[in-house]
């Protein structure tokens, strides 16, 4: 299993960002993934294309921009980037204060996404992610926990 620490690292966390609109935010997130050498430069355009097709807003002030299915070939290594926008961005009528950008070719990132899903359901943790000024706290909150991905209980025969 991929090391979850390797997917989201301190250099991929940007707090106190500002963006002119949601496409600007997606571009910033994409350029961070490019700078981290996680994706080829064309992946940024695929992220914007994906965002035009369907909003990546998921609730609780979060969006999860990522590329299209075709853009998987542009992923060099699985990685996540976290960008906080304390002023909020209008995201097709919803307000977004944090983006978790995804570069993944397969299922390397499922554990971190599971953790994110649980954080979003625990509202105080979601609020902390939106507002913290400590990058280490972002890493801690998104660190996968053993029981994040439940296994179905098989019926005994």
């Amino acid at each position, binding site marked *: 299993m991929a090391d979850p620490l390797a997917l989201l690292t301190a250099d991929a966390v940007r707090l106190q960002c500002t963006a002119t609109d949601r496409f600007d935010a997606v571009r910033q997130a994409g350029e961070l993934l490019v700078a981290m050498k996680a994706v080829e430069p064309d992946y940024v355009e695929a992220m914007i294309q994906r965002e035009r097709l369907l909003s990546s807003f998921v*609730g609780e002030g979060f969006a999860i921009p990522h590329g299209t299915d075709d853009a998987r070939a542009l992923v060099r290594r699985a990685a996540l980037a976290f960008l906080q926008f304390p002023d909020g961005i209008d995201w097709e009528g919803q307000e977004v204060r944090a983006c978790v950008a995804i570069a993944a070719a397969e299922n390397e*990132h*499922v554990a971190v996404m599971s953790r994110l899903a649980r954080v979003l359901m625990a509202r105080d943790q979601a609020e902390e992610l939106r507002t913290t000024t400590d990058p280490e706290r972002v890493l801690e909150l998104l660190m996968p926990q053993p029981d994040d991905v439940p296994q179905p209980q098989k019926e005994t025969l």
Partner: protein
Amino acid sequence: MSTVNGKDVRRVVVACEAGMGSSVLLMTQLSRQLAPHGVTVDHSPVNRLDDDTADVVLCHTGLASRARQAAPNTPVLPFNMFMGDPAFARLEAAIKDGGPIDG
């Protein structure tokens, strides 16, 4: 439109455009809800769906017609919100108590 009884559902697939972001997020939420009923939840890009993929497909309203095209004999349940959409509670109730799932 296709129908399946909730009692016969063993595998639910969440479809999204890339199968990379929102479907993964929703998959992990739903597996927590449905695992106790013996149901596995997986995710897939909408273009890779077919009728063998799942007993029920969930996808965002904006992708529902593509999903129905890809899996014409599988019920497709559209949703609008990634968290707390009423479609998820209806699905869970149908799986738990039995009852038709149309989509």
